[in-house]
């Protein structure tokens, strides 16, 4: 099964990022393809590399970066939502990108499922 994920909240403030990550991890472990994680609304703040959480806490940005590197998951932030919130190319984590809502439409069309996480 091919899965797209839509993530609508930023890291730490809401559990959405954590649940989306755990869901993606489980899907991959079961042999499914997680095609892309699309970030919308405050969700775009998942991909700032300036995030520096306490050492005993999870690093949510680094986790997305690793998911992208190891499993080819595209991690994409909506450009209009990113501009509003100060997410720009120079602060993106490795493996992420900024793109338009047309890409989300493609993701919704080409996958068997689109699963949304948010507030």
């Amino acid at each position, binding site marked *: 099964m091919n899965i797209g994920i839509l993530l*609508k909240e930023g890291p730490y403030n809401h559990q959405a990022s954590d649940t989306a990550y755990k869901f993606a991890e489980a899907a991959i*472990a079961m042999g499914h393809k997680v095609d892309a994680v699309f970030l919308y609304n405050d969700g775009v703040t998942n991909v700032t590399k300036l995030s520096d959480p306490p050492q005993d806490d999870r690093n949510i940005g680094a986790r997305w970066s690793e998911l992208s590197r190891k499993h080819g998951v595209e991690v994409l932030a909506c450009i209009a939502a990113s501009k509003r919130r100060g997410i720009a190319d120079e602060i993106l984590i490795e493996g992420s990108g900024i793109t338009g809502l047309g890409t989300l439409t493609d993701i919704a069309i080409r996958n068997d*499922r689109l699963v949304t996480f948010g507030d």
Partner: protein
Amino acid sequence: MLHTINKSPFENGTMETCFRFLQPGDPVLFIEDGVYAVQAGNRFAEKIRAVMESNPVYALSPDLEARGIDRLDEGVSTVDYQGFVSLVEKHQVNSWL
């Protein structure tokens, strides 16, 4: 269609709104703060029981454990993240945010 609910019904109307749109047989999965809905003995026990007459009800076990919820309404099934994925294999998803 799988319906997920991630909000506590005590503070937010999401669960009650979702229940109005459910079709018979559609599974409901409580996640995140939504899992408080199915703690045994709370104010929503009757509503959960009514929904279970026509719909299977699940709760995400890691979210239950994180919140210290050990007693569930009778008839509620628990799933882990892989069980969540299995439900998504069988159904399109409707995430009530």
